[in-house]
C-alpha cells in the first residue's frame, strides 16, 4: 500500500511538472537567416530584403522571430554559411539572389526540414524550396510613364546591368510605360554587363547624357553610380529609381520617384506557409496587387516637373495594375 502511494505521488508530481511546463512553453520562435552577396546597407538589392526582414521581426516581436544574416557571400562561400544555419536549426534560410540556385538545390536535399528560399526566380523547386519573383515590369511601367511625360529632349536613358532576371522585366516594363505616355520619346538603352560596377554605370550614364537624355533610370545596385552621374549633371536632368532608398540619399534631390520591392510580404508569406505545413515547392509572385511593391514620389520634387498630371497618370496605372485591369506583356517587348 505504501509503495502504491509512493508511485501515485511520483506520477502526480511528474504529471504536474509536465502540465506546468506545457502551460509555460512560449510560442515557437521562427528562426530566419539571410545570405547576400553584397552588404545589407547597399541602398539596393540586399538592403531591401534585410530591411524587410527587420520590419517583419519588429511586427512579430523579437521574441517571436530570430534573425541572422551573412554578407559578401559568393555562391562558392555561401554553402558553408547555409550549412551552419541549417545545422543550428534555423527554420528559413533566404539566399537572396538567383545565383544561389544550385547551392539551394543541394542544401535542400541535405536538410529536408529546413525551408530554403531564393530569388528572383519563377522556378518551382524541391518540396522545401520557395522561389520569389518580382513582376518588375510593373514598377518599370510606372517609372516609364514619369520619364515619358517629364522628358523635354525626347531622349530617355536606361542604364541596364544585364538583360536577365528582374532587370529584364524592369527594362521592358519601362519601355511599355514610356511608349504609353510618350510614343515619340526615344529610349537610349544600354548594358554595362555587370550588376556592381558603379564606375561603368556612371560612364554609361554620362554617355547617355552626352547623347541628350534628360531623364534616366537604372536597375541593380550599380544604379547608384549612374545616379551619381545624374546628380553631377547640370540642373534639369532627372532620375526615376528602382529603389526607394535612393530617395533618402543626398543625390535623392534628382530622383522624381522610386519604386521598391516590399520583401516583407514574401517573408511573411514564407513564415505563414511554413507554419501551415508547406515547406516549399511554390513560387511566390511580387506584384502591386499583393503588396509586393511600394512606390513613392519625391515629396520635395519640383511641382513644375512632377506635375499633378504626371501623378494622376501614374496613380491610375498603379490602381489598374492592382485591380488587374492593366496587364503588361513584357515578353512581347523586343529590345
Amino acid at each position, binding site marked *: 500500500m505504501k509503495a502504491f502511494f509512493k508511485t501515485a505521488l511520483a506520477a502526480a508530481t511528474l504529471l504536474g511538472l509536465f502540465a506546468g511546463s506545457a502551460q509555460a512553453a512560449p510560442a515557437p520562435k521562427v528562426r530566419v537567416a539571410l545570405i547576400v552577396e553584397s552588404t545589407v546597407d547597399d541602398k539596393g538589392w540586399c538592403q531591401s530584403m534585410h530591411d524587410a526582414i527587420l520590419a517583419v521581426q519588429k511586427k512579430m516581436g523579437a521574441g517571436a522571430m530570430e534573425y541572422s544574416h551573412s554578407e559578401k557571400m559568393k555562391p562558392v562561400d555561401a554553402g558553408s554559411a547555409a550549412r551552419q544555419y541549417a545545422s543550428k536549426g534555423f527554420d528559413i534560410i533566404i539566399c537572396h539572389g538567383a545565383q544561389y540556385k544550385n547551392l539551394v538545390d543541394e542544401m535542400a536535399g541535405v536538410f529536408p526540414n529546413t525551408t530554403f528560399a531564393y530569388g528572383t526566380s519563377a522556378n518551382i523547386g524541391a518540396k522545401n524550396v520557395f522561389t520569389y519573383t518580382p513582376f518588375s515590369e510593373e514598377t518599370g511601367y510606372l517609372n516609364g510613364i514619369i520619364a515619358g511625360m517629364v522628358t523635354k529632349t525626347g531622349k530617355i536613358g536606361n542604364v541596364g546591368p544585364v538583360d536577365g532576371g528582374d532587370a529584364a522585366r524592369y527594362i521592358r516594363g519601362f519601355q511599355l510605360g514610356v511608349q504609353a505616355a510618350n510614343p515619340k520619346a526615344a529610349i*537610349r538603352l*544600354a548594358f554595362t554587363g555587370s550588376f*556592381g560596377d*558603379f564606375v561603368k554605370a556612371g*560612364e*554609361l550614364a554620362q*554617355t547617355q547624357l*552626352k547623347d541628350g537624355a534628360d531623364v534616366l533610370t537604372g536597375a541593380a545596385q550599380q544604379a547608384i553610380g549612374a545616379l*551619381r552621374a545624374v546628380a553631377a549633371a547640370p540642373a534639369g536632368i532627372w532620375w526615376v529609381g528602382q529603389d526607394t532608398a535612393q530617395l533618402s540619399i543626398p543625390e535623392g534631390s534628382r530622383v522624381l520617384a522610386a519604386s521598391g520591392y516590399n520583401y516583407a510580404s514574401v517573408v511573411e508569406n514564407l513564415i505563414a506557409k511554413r507554419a501551415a505545413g508547406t515547406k516549399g515547392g511554390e513560387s511566390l509572385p511580387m506584384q502591386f496587387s499583393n503588396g509586393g511593391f511600394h512606390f513613392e514620389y519625391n515629396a520635395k520634387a519640383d511641382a513644375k516637373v512632377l506635375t499633378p498630371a504626371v501623378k494622376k497618370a501614374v496613380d491610375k496605372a498603379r490602381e489598374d495594375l492592382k485591380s488587374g485591369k492593366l496587364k503588361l506583356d513584357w515578353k512581347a517587348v523586343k529590345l
Partner: protein
Amino acid sequence: MSAGLMIYNVLCLAVPFSVALLLAALGENFNQRAGVFNLGCDGIMCMGAFLGFMVPFSLKATPWAAYGNLLGIGAALAVGAAMGVVFALVTVTFRASQGIAGIGLQMLGWGLAGTLFRHFVGGVTGVEGMAAIAIPGLSKIPFLGGVLFNHNALTYTALLLVPACWFLLYKTPWGLKVRAVGTHPRAADTMGIHVDRIRYQALMLGGAMAGLAGAYLSLCQAKMFSDDLVAGRGFIAVALVYFGRWSPLGILGGALLFSIAQSFQLSMQVWGIKFPYEFAVMLPYVLVIVVLALARKARQLGPTDLGKPYNREMRF
C-alpha cells in the same frame, strides 16, 4: 546625330575614362622597369579610392572642407606609397614570389578598404568630388577644346605626368638607375647602384600613383566609394604596361585606345546599333588581348630581369 558629333562625344568621354588606367599604368611602369611587377596594383587602387573618398567625406562639415579633395589625394598618395613599401619589403627584401605577393596585396587592399568603409561610413554615399575646370581660351578651340581642355584637375595632371614620367625615366640619373636594375641588376650593382634601394623607391612611386588612380575613381569619376569600385581596373593597368611596351607614351596610347573602345561600345549601344551587348561590353578587353598577342615580340623591349628577385650573394 552626325558622324562628326558622334566621334566628338566618344572622344570627349574617352579622355576622362582613361585617367585611372593611365595613372595606375604609369606607376606600374616604374615598378616593372625596376624589375618588379606588382599585381597588387588593384588593391592599392582600392585603398587610394577609399582614402580619396574618406578624407573629404569626413571633413564635409568642418572648416577644412574646402581642402578635402586635396587632402584626400594626399592621403591616397601616401597610402599607395606605404603599400608600395610593404610590397617592396616582401618581394625585394624577403624575395617572395612577386606574383603571389601581388595577389596577396590585391586581396589585402580590397578587403581592408571594404572593411574600413563599412566601419567608418556604412552604406553607399557620395561626395561632391572634383568638378571640371574649362581652361580659358583652350577650351574654346573647336573640337579639341571639348576633348582635351574641359576636364577636372586630375585629368590634366595625368596627361602632364606622361611627359614627366618619360623625362624622369629617360633623362635623369635616377631613371637610368631604375632601368639598369630592371635590366641587369648585377651589372648595376657592380657599378655601385644600390639595387634594393632603387627598387624600393620605384615601388613607392608606383604605389603612390596607383593610390592616386584610385582617388581619381572615387573623387572624379564615381564621386562615391564602394568596395567594388575599382572592379579589376588595376589588372588592366598591369596589362597596359605590356601593351605600351614599357614606355609612358605607349601606355598613354594603350589607355586611350582601351577607353575609346569602352566609350565607343557604350555609345554604340546608346545609339541603338543592333549588336549583341554581350559582345559590345567585351570589346575593350578583346582589343587588349588581341594587341598583346600581336605584340608578343615587344617582350624583348621590356626589362629583362622582370619578376626575378635579386640576390647579390647568389652565383648563377
